[in-house]
């Protein structure tokens, strides 16, 4: 298993890894970065193409303001320095999905640079306690917060889509995606393991969605990652060589590709080969990276300043001459930016300090349940209910959502309102704690997310039995069916009650309150003895 192999390499003390990312984020704007066509995904092929998008002779780019604003929000969220003058450049290469023969990007003069991003390390609780590596933990109740420096952020646009038709030996091009706005975030190689990499990317993803920089859409992946990985012997300086792994599409792919690379490079180093610059791609089926091209084949992109776009000037409150004019003001954007995920979590710890600990929050984060938790909390109006909800989230929901992997599906099927309703019913003892797992599973499986809780309870008869008389009837019946236990009660009352409890629960799945039924049995049995 690549993960354990890589972990072994890193914890052996003989090697260290340097990992950096180049992350392409698709900006959530209505139109494209340099043309007025819509950037909506999954539209009819080649229906969103202006003259500029297909590089018609005479066409010109015109910069989209909302792309700039989204980029500035990203720069602020990543604590970058905003460069008040930056330039667009052309990056030349021939490929069918690039109609002009070049991409407009910011190579030499990006609009943001020198930032740092703090992210919580997502590690399972038990591993956290046992591992000696994570000596950054001051107390077990706090998050391990790591940091990764950001080298630069640049504005650029996306290419079209190539669809390779092997049967008819041709490639089809869809230019709908061409020209949609992107930012590329380049980090410094501060990431030291696949775990750190995944944690970083998850927190970054939260920030990008929260700041409305990209969309969380099922139609197209908004975020694509290239990873640069190099392994070095401990106490040696890095020589600048690294392996670039292109186009990783999911968090799991990133994790596995990095782990594979670490193990592969360890083999090379151990056999006295050195790491040379190389570009590789990740095979999701075989869980391995594959060679793509060597350094000598690296392409010279002939970067040239884009002559049709003047230099990009950014302004802030100090630039008085822009007052009254409708220019983008960095300080304005700063004032209106939403709270960062990091600060928001601190707020939760404070707001819900009666029952929420850092450890809880960390687990919610690891399970990708923070948003769901937040929404559920708003539908419950006292801390007692909220505490119950938290406990259910971290047990039943954790299990039903496969340790958070299917949490998105769960959140869609079981809306926060429905969940809150369930918790209220639980608190009122209309349903029992034991019925929750089954109930939640049923709701999760249902295709109709608008169904009321009542309809579920009615259909599957899941109401707790609260009526004393009814309960007594049931218990009497159970006693009749289990005469042995009546006798046993005289000598071993505890065991007898347990057995009776088991029997009644078997018969009335999840509808029995432990304390109620125990009391009833005790009363009935004591009466008999008398």
């Amino acid at each position, binding site marked *: 298993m690549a993960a354990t192999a890589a972990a072994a390499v890193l914890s052996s003390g003989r090697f260290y890894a340097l990992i950096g990312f180049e992350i392409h984020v698709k900006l959530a704007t209505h139109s494209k970065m340099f043309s007025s066509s819509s950037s909506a995904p999954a539209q009819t092929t080649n229906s969103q193409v202006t003259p500029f998008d297909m590089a018609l002779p005479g066409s010109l780019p015109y910069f989209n303001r909302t792309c700039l604003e989204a980029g500035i929000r990203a720069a602020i969220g990543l604590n970058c320095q905003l460069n008040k003058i930056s330039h667009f450049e052309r990056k*030349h290469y021939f490929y069918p999905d690039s109609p002009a023969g070049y991409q407009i990007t910011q190579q030499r003069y990006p609009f943001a640079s020198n930032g740092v991003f703090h992210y919580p390390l997502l590690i399972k609780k038990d591993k956290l306690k046992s591992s000696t590596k994570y000596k950054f933990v001051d107390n077990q109740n706090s998050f391990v917060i790591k940091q990764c420096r950001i080298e630069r952020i640049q504005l650029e646009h996306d290419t079209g889509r190539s669809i390779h038709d092997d049967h008819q030996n041709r490639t089809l091009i869809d230019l709908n995606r061409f020209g949609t706005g992107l930012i590329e975030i380049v980090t410094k190689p501060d990431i030291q393991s696949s775990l750190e990499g995944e944690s970083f990317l998850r927190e970054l993803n939260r920030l990008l969605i929260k700041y409305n920089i990209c969309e969380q859409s099922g139609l197209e992946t908004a975020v694509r990652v290239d990873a640069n990985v190099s392994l070095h012997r401990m106490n040696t300086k890095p020589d600048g060589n690294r392996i670039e792994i292109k186009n990783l599409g999911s968090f799991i792919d990133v994790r596995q590709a990095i782990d594979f690379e670490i193990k592969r490079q360890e083999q090379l180093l151990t056999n006295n080969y050195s790491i040379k610059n190389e570009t590789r791609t990740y095979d999701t089926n075989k869980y391995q990276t594959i060679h793509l091209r060597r350094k000598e084949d690296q392409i010279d992109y002939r970067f*040239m300043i884009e002559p049709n776009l003047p230099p990009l000037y950014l302004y802030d409150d100090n630039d008085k001459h822009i007052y009254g004019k409708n220019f983008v003001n960095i300080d304005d954007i700063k004032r209106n930016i939403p709270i960062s995920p990091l600060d928001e979590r601190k707020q939760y710890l404070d707001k819900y300090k009666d029952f929420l600990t850092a450890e809880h929050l960390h687990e919610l984060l690891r399970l990708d349940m923070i948003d769901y938790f937040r929404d559920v909390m708003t539908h419950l109006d006292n801390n007692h209910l909220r505490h119950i909800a938290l406990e259910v989230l971290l047990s039943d929901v954790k299990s039903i959502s496969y340790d958070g992997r299917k949490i998105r599906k769960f959140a869609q099927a079981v809306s926060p309102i429905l969940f809150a309703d369930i918790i209220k019913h639980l608190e009122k003892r209309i349903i029992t704690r034991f019925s929750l797992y089954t109930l939640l599973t049923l709701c999760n499986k249902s295709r109709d997310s608008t169904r009321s809780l009542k309809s579920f309870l009615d259909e599957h008869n899941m109401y707790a039995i609260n009526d004393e008389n009814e309960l007594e009837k049931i218990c009497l019946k159970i006693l009749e069916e289990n005469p042995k236990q009546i006798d046993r009660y005289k000598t071993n009352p505890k065991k007898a009650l347990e057995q009776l409890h088991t029997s009644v629960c078997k018969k009335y799945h999840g509808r029995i309150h432990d304390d109620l039924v125990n009391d009833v049995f005790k009363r009935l049995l004591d009466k008999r003895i008398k």
Partner: protein
Amino acid sequence: MLSNKTTSSAVRSAINALQHYKVLNTLTNDCFDKALETEQQLSIEKKNNSPLYGRPILIKDNFCLRDTLTTCASKMLANFRAPYTSTIVQRLIDHGCIIVGKTNMDEFAMGVASWGAFGPVANPWSLTKTTMTNVENNKTVLHVAGGSSGGSAAAVAANFVSIALGSDTGGSIRNPAARCGCYGFKPSYGLLSRLGMVALVNSFDSPGFFARNIDDLIFATNAVAGPDDEDATLLSKPFENFKTSNELSKEKKKIIIGLPDDYDVNTLSSEYRLCWQDLVHRLTETGEYTFKRVQLPYTPYSNAAYTILSSCEIASNMARYDGIKYGHHTKNIDKNKDTYEDILKKTRDESLGERVRGRILAGNYYLLEENYDKYFVQSQRVRRGVMNDYKKVFEEDKIDCLLAPVVSNDPITLAEYEQADDIFSEDDIFTVGANLAGLPALSFPVRLSSKGFPIGLQLIGPFLKDQELLSTAYRICSTYQFPFLDLTKQI
């Protein structure tokens, strides 16, 4: 102006002239039928009072016009019909201009002879040379019309139309205007929208006009200048119309004109130098002009900087011509063997001319990572030097405008041009400076040479002082009469 008589039609006259003088090869393709229709419509509608209303005009074939062939005189775009119209052309149409055809040019606007894939434009003055006939076939010897907007220049010079649209990147309006004997105006960079004009060198390209009098230049420029929402290199402030000679105050202030020593080069023929000097003397005598010799020390380097910067942008702008989206696509495909790169190479080899390919090659060389600083960036520094030269002369030396040559000698014959091997012309030294610095410049005919060809000179003005430049040109040109050609009289 629109005629009331049903028998005479300005468009019809233009069409007759163009067809009669097909030998000059001024058009790449025509819009004759549509033009006649439009003329009919306009005479009924009577939409506006624009001085251009109903005027037949020609536009250079590097301006897109919806559903019309826009070829740039290249095999690559020989079948290209633009799905949209360039801003400038649309504004002309909105003013009531009638587009009669697209004019011939150098391929993709590269060159000074207007000789692209559809053959050369001939200088209309060749037809006045009854003594010059080819001994072998008794045909009139034809001469170059200048370039790259030769078709537009020739048509206006011969009076087929009164106004034509061209483009000037390194002199492509001023050069053919001087060769053919008409006015050629390149406004300040950033006044006229380039949307829809096929890009050659985005940093230098400027649309501009040919005309037979300066007021027409003003009417045409007024109709089209000003911001649009799609060209980010335009000045954003609204455009104030230029005033014509009638509208300006009659008060005549003294004009100080600079004579750049660095433009007085060896290659300038004595006849052409004499024309320059004679004009200076004549104007001095009127008492309204003072002439000062000025220095533009970066001039000898301007050609090199222009060459490098233009090659780089050309290589970049030409990268889009792959035949996949539009344009020529090779038919010579080996389905079993050919890769994307192979097909691309064949397509471009087959359809791009030698001069174009040469510039692309050079540009790609200069843009290599290891060369970018040495060539591109260094050329930009030289360019700044050129700009500062002009700035100093205009601001510190208090010069109103400069008077300089445009070409150094009479045009050579088409046969001689075919033998020659140059990629760049030595005359570029006169014209590229104004493009490097984005300055307004106007070429005007002065007199005929001893062999009977027009000799032209140019005025170069400070950035955004186009109004002053046009007024000065008007004043200078009213001090003499140039014998404009009119080939329509002989039909």
